[in-house]
């Protein structure tokens, strides 16, 4: 998928994570802030990169403002932001490679 315009998902509530995706030129540019970055920064980065790869996103600026979200919430917000950026809200291919 090609990121077409800036899109966000998630909130700044505790246990949530706010994800912003924006168009970019060269690969995935990742920015992560998290209160648990020392213990889970690596895991957050890995989930973010894997999710982008799974969704076929090659170029994007991805900003993650984490509030202690579990991995399943992070995935949900990442996917939600990417699908919003391409304007798709229906007929999501649930359970296929790209979700």
């Amino acid at each position, binding site marked *: 998928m090609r990121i077409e315009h800036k899109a966000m998902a998630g909130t700044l509530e*505790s*246990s949530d994570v706010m994800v912003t995706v924006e168009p970019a030129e060269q690969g995935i540019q*990742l920015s*992560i802030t998290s*209160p*648990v*970055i*020392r*213990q*889970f*920064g*690596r*895991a957050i*980065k890995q989930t973010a990169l894997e999710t982008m790869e799974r969704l076929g996103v090659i170029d994007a600026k991805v900003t993650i403002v984490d*509030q*202690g*979200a*579990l*991995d399943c919430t992070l995935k949900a917000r990442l996917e939600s932001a990417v699908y919003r950026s391409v304007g798709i809200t229906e007929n999501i291919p649930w359970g296929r490679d790209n979700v």
Partner: protein
Amino acid sequence: MKNSVGREIPRELIEQGWQPYQGKDAYNGTEFQKVGPKIKVADQGSEEKVLNSIEEAIRACGLKDGMTLSFHHHFRDGDYIVETVMREIVRLGFRDMKLACSSIGSAAPIVADCIETGVVTGLTTSGIRDRIGEAVSHGKLKDIAILRTHGGRIRAIEQGKIHIDVAFVGAPSCDAYGNASGKGGKSNCGSLSYAEIDVMYADQVVVITDTLVPFPNKPSHIEGIYVDYVVEVNEIGNPKKIASAAARMTTNPKDLMIAEDCVRVMRALPYFVDGFSFQTGVGGPSIATTIFLREHLKELGIKIGWIVGGVSTHMVNLMKEGLVGCIADVQDFDLGAIESLGTDPRHFDISVSEYANPFNKGAFINKLDFVILSALEIDTDFNVNVLTGSDGVLRGAAGGHPDTAACAKCCIIVTPLVRGRIPTVCDRVVTVTTAGDSIDVLVTDHGIAVNPLRQDLIKHLNAAGIEHVDIHTLRDKAYSIVGQPDDIQFEDRVVAIVEARDGTVMDVVRQVKPFSISED
């Protein structure tokens, strides 16, 4: 060298004379000679000790670079005393000061500045938070900070390990001759227990108050015989932050669930009989535990003999209902507790030595049945961390946690299994503040675990049909929810020593390493 909780004690510390922690009862039978302060005898012709300003008091004390100043934390986040005194210290150009605080909260950011600029180079405290914790954890303090328990601090003072040159004592009311009270002023805090021993051992004592009252201000918590100078200021603190209207009962359903299980555990144990003793704090599950006790006490027709420690309105209410015999108070958390202290003869204050000092002839907590405590982390050996956050930075307080846990017949830790993405139950706590040999039961929202050292308790819980699991099961559960955390990376440099209550080394805190997610 490793201590008995498996923590490596750096060789330099051993060479400096520090001993490794060897278990909670290792100091039994110790004998030692107490130290005494230097006394400047009062001028018999002078009927007043009042000076016009803090600057005058500092000059009168003959303060010098390198001296040790003590402060109490009864005004909690509403404290203006530390800020006011340290501002003068900075203005007058002093350097290399050592602070000996019973605890220090978010109320004195100036201390963090002083650490950065070298005005303060030494620190001992039981609690350390916010910018001060950051400064120490990032290696800004010249000396190694020493984190002491409430009981251990008194021991260190009486052994001469902490020598207080000047104690600055904030007091809600005081007379011109130094009789000071935690009540009777504009910003009352109730008891002044954390200052009571300081004034007996400090070479000089300055009371700072915003309410000067006629002599004699009796009953007093601080006696004038220990006080050199009295200074009146406009405000000693922010009353709204010193005492809340009432420590609030939680409506968080998880806290309530944990508290209910905690009371079920207590009730299943043989200590839960008429006249038992009890202590807890003001965290969500702790207050709920206090409240849930009511119906069980009534149902069984028994009462709590005495409560000790920090006091909230909820405890006072139980006493008023006749469900608690008396309250031995060292700190008051809300207006109800402050109002009751000394007004009701069953509610009295005790010094922190009487409360928790391990090196006297017997403190209250030696006779304690139950203590309910919280934890930031607890590992599979039941070691508890209440000092360092998940980022490795100092942001907590040992307080009376290690003291009461070591002494109570049953110490119950109440905590959610996971906070945000932080697993509370883990393989290895970042910092050991309270040794696993002191912790008996862990109650979480995902289940109960009992320390295998306490087979007797396990038997009683089994008999009562209370389910419990191995603590490793809870750790696995926590990791299955949040994932396995990476270890926090530290520099080699030791920035703080976590001193066990007997003066040995429980653990050390190292400088945090700058963190970045590496490009790989």
